[in-house]
Every structure is written in C-alpha cells, then in structure tokens.
C-alpha cells in the first residue's frame, strides 16, 4: 500500500513541476494559435474591411451578427468553388496515390539505373510551385509542346486552346498538380513499403500466394498507417490548392478553375470584404478540423490493431 502511494505521488509532483516549467512556452503557443483565431471569429461577425477607416479592434461598430454566415450559405460562387475544389481533390489525390504506389512497388526492387531514376522522379517535388505553374502555362498554350506532341501522334495539326476551355483548363490544372505531388506520395509510400517484414512476404510466397495476392493480403495491410498519413497530407494540401493553379489560369476562364483558395484570394484583394473572408475561412477551418480529427481517430485505431 505504502509503496504504491509513494510511487503515485512522485509522478504527480513531476507532472506539476513540468507544467510550471513549460507554462511560458505554452502561453506563447496558445497566443500564437488562439489569438488569430479569435480575431478571425470577431471580424467574421462584422462588416469590417481595411477601407472602413478604423482599426480591426473597432470593428464592433460594424457588427452584423451572423449576416456573413447567412450570406455564405446562399453564395452560389462559394458553393461552386467548394464543389470544384472537391472535384480536383477526388481526381488528384487517388491518381497521385495509385501512381505513387505503383512507382514505390517498382522501386522496392533493385534494377539498373535505379538511383538516377529515383533522383529524376523526385525532381518535380523540388520545383517551386510558382515556377511549375508557369511551366505548365507554357506547355498548355495552343501553340505549345502539348499540342505539338498530340499533332505528331495524330498526324494532323492540333490547336486546342487548353487554358481557355472551362473543362480542359480544369484538366490541365489537375495534370500539373499530379505531376508535382506524385513524387511526395511515392516517397512516403516507398518508406512504408520498405518497412514491410520480408519474412512474412516470403512465408506468403511459400504458402502459394501469387504476387498480387501477396500485395493485397500482406503488403497493403502492413502499410495501412502510412497510407492514411500520406492520403491525409495530400487531402489537406490539395484542398488548399492555389499557387500553380493561379499562375496557370488565374481561376479562369471565368470562374471555371476557381477553387476555394482562389475565391478567397480574389475576395481579399479585389472585393476587400474581409469580414466575409473571415467567415469563409472559419467555415473551412471547421470542416477541415472535423476531417482531421476523424482521420486521426482512425489512425489511432489502426495503430492499436497493427502494434
């Protein structure tokens, strides 16, 4: 009894001391994380803009209750931007995942020239997104290399105006995203693939499993955690897609490639209605946070199972 009491007191004391020592740092972090959030919440409930002539702290004089949020609910441009962002995500993330997985499987084995291919494969990831955007902007011009190649293959001159057609522009933007971010997926998945115990793969082989069966029954289940991490990273990043896209199309033609980030950017710099922008940003933050919590819970469960 006494021994267990002593043992339980000590960690308590340690925890208290630890709390006191880290308190300044915790306050700092809290301030950095929470203050902008509160500020955003405050502004989102007003009509404040940088042109209103008063500082943001005086925004209460322009209080409009929940008008920004009710506007948001009926803002067709917002909902179409959200839908477009979702489409880009639904196309890009699975494509990047499957390509990355295929490449990782390929690179798990040895083959001549592996190191060179490996370096080449990782290059897109190193390119500054703005530069990548400009690159694809040029590639997809009506007189650009993409059309040249299509002409050479088909045998008659192709002059598709990629970036001026609403559907094709969206496709071009997604191609650029897939080009740039498949390598990251590949890198993460390769790390997971190398960690699959070789003995178990051999055991499966000896039990008569063919390569596809081994992949589905052993490799994929063992990679579950890392797959979820890779997908979570790309989903979150892809939701915020902006730089490459903005340089290629500026959200156009019209609003054909306008994603949430582009819409927010335009509202901020052109319409200058910051109260409304704050409301949008907050709404998205809440949605993403719920998604993140869900993903993390799932991951914790997976880890428990595979530990």
């Amino acid at each position, binding site marked *: 009894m006494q021994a267990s009491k002593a043992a339980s007191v000590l960690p308590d004391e340690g925890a208290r001391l630890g709390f006191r020592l880290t308190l300044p740092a915790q306050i700092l972090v809290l301030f950095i994380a929470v203050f902008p959030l509160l500020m955003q919440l405050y502004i989102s409930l007003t009509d404040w803009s940088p042109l209103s002539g008063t500082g943001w702290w005086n925004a209460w004089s322009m209080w409009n209750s929940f008008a920004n949020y009710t506007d948001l609910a009926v803002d067709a441009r917002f909902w179409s931007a959200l839908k477009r962002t979702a489409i880009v995500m639904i196309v890009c993330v699975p494509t990047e995942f499957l390509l990355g997985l295929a490449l990782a499987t390929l690179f798990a084995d040895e083959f001549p020239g592996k190191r060179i291919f490996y370096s080449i494969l990782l290059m897109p990831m190193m390119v500054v997104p703005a530069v990548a955007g400009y690159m694809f902007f040029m590639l997809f011009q009506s007189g650009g290399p993409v059309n040249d190649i299509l002409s050479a293959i088909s045998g008659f001159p192709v002059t598709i105006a990629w970036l001026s057609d609403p559907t094709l522009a969206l496709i071009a933007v997604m191609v650029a995203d897939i080009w740039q971010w498949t390598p990251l997926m590949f890198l993460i998945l390769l790390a997971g693939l190398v960690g699959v115990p070789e003995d178990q793969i*051999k*055991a*499966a082989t*000896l*039990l*008569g499993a063919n390569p596809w069966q081994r992949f589905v*029954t052993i490799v994929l*289940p063992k990679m579950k955690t890392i797959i979820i991490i890779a997908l979570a990273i790309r989903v979150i990043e892809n939701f915020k897609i902006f730089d490459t896209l903005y340089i290629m199309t500026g959200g156009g033609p019209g609003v054909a490639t306008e994603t949430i980030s582009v819409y927010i950017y335009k509202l901020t710099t052109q319409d200058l209605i910051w109260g409304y922008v704050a409301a949008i940003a907050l709404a998205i933050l809440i949605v993403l946070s719920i998604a993140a919590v869900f993903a993390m819970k799932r991951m914790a469960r997976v880890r428990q199972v*595979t530990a």
Partner: protein
Amino acid sequence: MSTIHLQNLVKKFGDFTALKTMDLAIADGEFMALLGPSGCGKSTTMNMIAGMEEPTSGKILFGERDMAGVPMGRRGVGFVFQNYAIFTHMSVRQNLAYGPKMRGAAKAEVDRRVGAIAEMLQLTPLLDRKADRLSVNILQRVAIGRSAIMEPAIFLLDEPLSNVDAAFRAVMRTELKQLQRQFRQTMVYVTHDQLEAMTMADRIAVMDHGVLQQVGTPLEVYNDPANVFVARFIGAPGMNLLKGRPAESDGGVVVDLGPLGATPPLPVEIADVARRMRGEVFYGFRPEQVKLAEDGRGLSMPVSFVERIGPRTIIHLGDGETAVKAVFDNDVGLAIGQTAVVAPAVEAVRVFDAATGLALRAG
C-alpha cells in the same frame, strides 16, 4: 512425403563461397538436423532446398524430381522461419487459412481443414485471437499449422528455437518432436545448438565452413566423430585431443605425448593403423569417459580449475596445448593445485591424423 537428394551442391555469393560442395541424401520421413556454427552454410543449404536461393551449381532432387527452376511456392515445402513470420495483422484462423485460401479452396473446405489442423495442434480456443500477442509456443504451433495445412512433403525449420528462453526450449523440443511423429513428414532442421540436434534428429549433418563434415545418427556423431572438428564441436564439453606420436611399447601401441608421458595402450582395432602412421596424431577421448586411476596407469596432470554444474563436476587439468577436461560425479575430491591421474576408458579412445584431421579407422 518425399526424399531429398543434394548432389554436388555449390553456392557462391560473389567471391564468397557459402557452400563448397554438398552431397546429402535425406530419407522419406526422416528428421535431419543441419548442425554447425554460424556461417557454416547450413541456412544457405536450407534456403536452396526451399527455393529462396538458386544453387550456383549442383542438383536438388525431391524424390526423382529435379527442383531446378521450380519456384518456391510450387515446391510443396513447409517452412518455419526463425522468428516464425506469423502474419501479425491477422487472426490465428486467418493465418491457418492463408495457404488454402490463396490456392482458391472453397470456403467450406478451408473451414474444415482449419478446424482439423487447429484441433490437432490444440489451437481451437485461440482461433479468433489476433496473432500479434501470442506466446512463443503458440506462435510455433501456428507457424507449423500454417505450413502443415498445405500437407507439404517436406518441412524445413530454420532455427525456430533460437529466440526462445532456455527454460522453455525443453518444452518446445518435446512438442516439436511429437508434431513430427504426428505428421510423419521429412523434416530438415537447421540449428547451431547440438542439444536440439541430438534430442530431436534421426540423423545429424555436421557442417563447417561450407563443407559437410559428417552425417550420422546422434550417437554415431558423438561416439565416432569423423574428424577433429566434429570431435571438438559435438559434446559439452567437446572431446579432449592431445597431440603426440604413436610408439611401440610392451602392452601394445601407445601415443607418446611428450612431457605428459605415454598413454595407456590403444584399442586393438586402431593400433594397427596407428602403428603405420608416420606423423603426429591426436589422442582423443570424451571428458565423460575418464576415470581416476593409480599412479602410472594414466595421465598425471595438475588440476587447474574445478567447475561445478550441479549433478556433475568438470575438472580442468593442465593448460594450453595439453588441457584436458574430465567430468566426474559431484562428490569428486579434487581441488585446484592437486595432481590427478586420469585414465580414459580404452574402448572410448579415438585417434586422429594430426595432418588431415581425419579419424583413424580400422581396416
């Protein structure tokens, strides 16, 4: 069930020769242990039988069938890995069902076979447990069951007991031997632990530096080692080997051990062979086959250390080139510094050619 024939088997990894040459015939239903220190080529041999590695040259026959080019999934070989390689993300049932499922067996058939094998291995109550938190003996049974359900002709076991703590090994050894009696498969068992080989195997193949040293029953290998390596490696402690020259004496042929004097006369069977030897020989005898003798009737040596191991006491005599160990009951009254006269039992003496290391045999 199947016989295994290894013919002129050679395996090289680049410049390194893992297996110099290997000829071995393993009978149907036999429990063969490949025994040797690490790096002796025993695991390489096993991996080639399983098809994980291709031999550089030579043949592997299962029965009459040449296994060259047959992929490992098609050899009908059950393999138990050193760490068991259980699929930790599955339940025990899924582990057992894995082979038949992958071969496309119907669900009812899979269930029936899993049920039967689980019953045989006493795994039935554990079928729905996750395989990642099982004790080692359960893991061993799952590993064996997972292979056995495929009804392989041959079972290969790669040091399955090396991760098990000593106290538990005896239990596992017994269990394994019983399983082999049950399944009656040809088993090849790789180990560096002679106790495992001695207790379980029908025959032992002793290997060193990629060369097969001797094949025989545990008693043959223990009693009549083919060469100096086997003599030293088998037995705990290994055989005593003293260098000397054969010499004639009144009682017959003896070995002149230099400063230690002459040995008692050699047994008649090897005396003739020893008489013809020109060079030096090793005079060998088991530490267990030594008796205390009167002065002049054995080797007189100082006691350098007394090692008590419970029921027995190991007396270390002399040192360096002329060190000898002798095992006595634990009431032996010898202390460090005393001089003991020890005489090996005549029929237990073995003589080896010091130049080649080979045992001298009658005829």
